[in-house]
C-alpha cells in the first residue's frame, strides 16, 4: 500500500486520547462486537505518495491512522483552533470505529449481500455514520467547537443519504436505521435498508412472521443493489441523482409486486431468491439454528430452502451466487475483544 507504520505507544497521550474517543463512539452507539486489538498504528507517508487517512485491519484487529492527517489532531479537550482539519481527523476515528465495532461478513445469513455493491455500501455507511453522528460524537468527546461540513458532492455519502431517506418513514425512521446498521454486520446493510421498506411501506401487506418478512426483504434487496454503487459515474452533477432515481423506480416497482402478491392471500412467503444462498449450504440441515439480524433464532432448514427452491425468482431480482471460497474471511459470529488485551487474533 505504500508508506510505513509504527505502533503508537500505549503510554502516549495520543494513544490514550484515541482510546477515549473510541470509547465515546461506543458509548453513544453500543454494538455487540469489538474487533479492535488494542493496537494503534501511525501511518507515515513516504515522499511522493498520496497520504492515507487510516484503516481497520480485520485480520489483525489493528487500527491505523495517519500520522499527518489524523493523529496530530487528537489533542483532547482543550481550547484552541478547531478547524475543519480536526473535524476530518475526528470523522476518521468515527469511521474506523464503525468498522471495528461490527462484523463485516455474515456468511450464515440468507439475506447477506456479498458482492462489490455491498463493499461499496459498507464504506458508504461508515462515511454516513461519521457525518450523521459527528456532532454528538465530537461534543460528547469534549470537542464542542470542532465541526464537519456535510459532503457537497455526489459520492458514497450522498448516495447513502438518499437511499436512507427513500426507505425511511414513520414506522422505522432514519435514526432507527442508523442505530440498527451501526451494529452490523456490514453484509446485512442492504437487508437492514430493505427492512425499513417493509416496515414503512408494506406494514399492512406482509405478514409479521419472519419467513414472510425475510422473503420480502430478499425481494427488495436487488432493487437497491444498484450496479453503480461502487462506481458512481462521472459528471458529478448528475450521477448521484441518476442512481437515486433508478433505485427509486426499482423499489417502487418491487413494493407494488410484493403488495399485489400478498393481496392474493397466498399463504406462503413471497417467492424471492435469497441474496446469499450459500448460507443454506453453510448451515446444514442438522438442526443448526441460524440467527437473524435482530438476534432471534430459528431453524435454518425449512423456510429458506422452500422459498429458494424451484420457485421463480422475483421479477427483476438479480441472481447473484458468489462462489464462496474456503478462504473467505469472517466467522459471522459475534466477537468481543478487550481493547487493552493485546493483539490476539480470531481471523485467519
Amino acid at each position, binding site marked *: 500500500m505504500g508508506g510505513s507504520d509504527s505502533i503508537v505507544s500505549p503510554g502516549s497521550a495520543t494513544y490514550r486520547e484515541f482510546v477515549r474517543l473510541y470509547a465515546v463512539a461506543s458509548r453513544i452507539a453500543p454494538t455487540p462486537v469489538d474487533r479492535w486489538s488494542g493496537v494503534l498504528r501511525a501511518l507515515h507517508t513516504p515522499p511522493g505518495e498520496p497520504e492515507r487517512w487510516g*484503516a481497520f485491519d480485520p485480520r489483525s484487529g489493528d487500527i491505523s491512522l495517519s500520522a499527518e492527517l489524523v493523529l496530530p489532531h487528537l489533542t483532547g479537550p482543550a481550547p484552541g483552533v478547531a478547524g475543519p482539519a480536526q473535524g476530518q481527523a475526528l470523522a476518521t476515528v468515527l469511521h474506523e470505529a464503525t468498522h471495528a465495532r461490527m462484523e463485516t461478513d455474515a456468511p450464515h445469513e440468507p439475506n447477506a449481500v456479498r458482492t*462489490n455493491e455491498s463493499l461499496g455500501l459498507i464504506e458508504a455507511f461508515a462515511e454516513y455514520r461519521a457525518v450523521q453522528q459527528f456532532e454528538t460524537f465530537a461534543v460528547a468527546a469534549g470537542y464542542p467547537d470542532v465541526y464537519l461540513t456535510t459532503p457537497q458532492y455526489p459520492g458514497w455519502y450522498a448516495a447513502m443519504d438518499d437511499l436512507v431517506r427513500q426507505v425511511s418513514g414513520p414506522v422505522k425512521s*432514519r435514526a432507527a436505521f442508523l442505530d440498527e446498521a451501526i451494529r452490523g454486520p456490514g*453484509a446485512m446493510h442492504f437487508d437492514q435498508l430493505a427492512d425499513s421498506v417493509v416496515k414503512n411501506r408494506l406494514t399492512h401487506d406482509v405478514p409479521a412472521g419472519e419467513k414472510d418478512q425475510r422473503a420480502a426483504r430478499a425481494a427488495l434487496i436487488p432493487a437497491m443493489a444498484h450496479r453503480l454503487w461502487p462506481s458512481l459515474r462521472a459528471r458529478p452533477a448528475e450521477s448521484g441523482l441518476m442512481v437515486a432515481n433508478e433505485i427509486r423506480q426499482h423499489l417502487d416497482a418491487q413494493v407494488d409486486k410484493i403488495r399485489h402478491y400478498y393481496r392474493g392471500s397466498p399463504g406462503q412467503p413471497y417467492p424471492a431468491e435469497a441474496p446469499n444462498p450459500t448460507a443454506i449450504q453453510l448451515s446444514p440441515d442438522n438442526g443448526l439454528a441460524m440467527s437473524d439480524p435482530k438476534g432471534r433464532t430459528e431453524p435454518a432448514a425449512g423456510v429458506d430452502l422452500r422459498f429458494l427452491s424451484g420457485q421463480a425468482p422475483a421479477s427483476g431480482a438479480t441472481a447473484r451466487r458468489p*462462489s464462496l471460497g474456503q478462504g473467505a474471511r469472517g466467522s459471522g459470529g459475534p466477537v468481543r475483544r478487550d481493547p487493552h488485551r493485546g493483539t490476539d487474533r480470531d481471523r485467519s
Partner: protein
Amino acid sequence: MPLDAHEFTLALAHAKEHLEQDPTVDVAAEQDRLRALVPADASEDDKRWTTILIDRLAEPPPAPPQRSALYDQAAEIHAAAFAAEGSIDEQIATAREARRRIFALAEQADEDEAADIRAMTRPLEHWENELRDPPWPIEGSRGQGS
C-alpha cells in the same frame, strides 16, 4: 443514575429528524423531552455535553459553505475514479492516482476547503483497501479484465 448515552443519542437523532421534516414541530418540547433523559445526578461532564447539544437544537443549521472550482474539480475526479473499468489492479491504480490528484488540488485550496477536499480521498482509500483484500470473493480478479 448514570446517563444512558445511547438512549440520548438516539432520541437526539429522532428530534433532529422531526425538526427537519416538520418545521412546525415545537422545538422547546423536543428539548424538554431530551432534558428528561439526563438524570439529575448525571456526571457534570454528561450534563455539559448533553446541554450543548440540546441548546443547539434551537439554532438554525449553518448555511453550506460556498465551494470553489477546486472543490468541484476534486469531486469530479473522486466520482470518475469509482467509475473505473478494468481489472481489480487497474481499478486500484485508478483510485490511487485519483487520490494523488485530489491531494494536489487541495494544496492549491485555502485552508478551510483543503481539509474537505482531502477528505474526498478517504472513501477512495477505503475502496482501494477493500479491492485489495475483500472479505468475500468479488467480481473481477487481480490482473484480469473484469
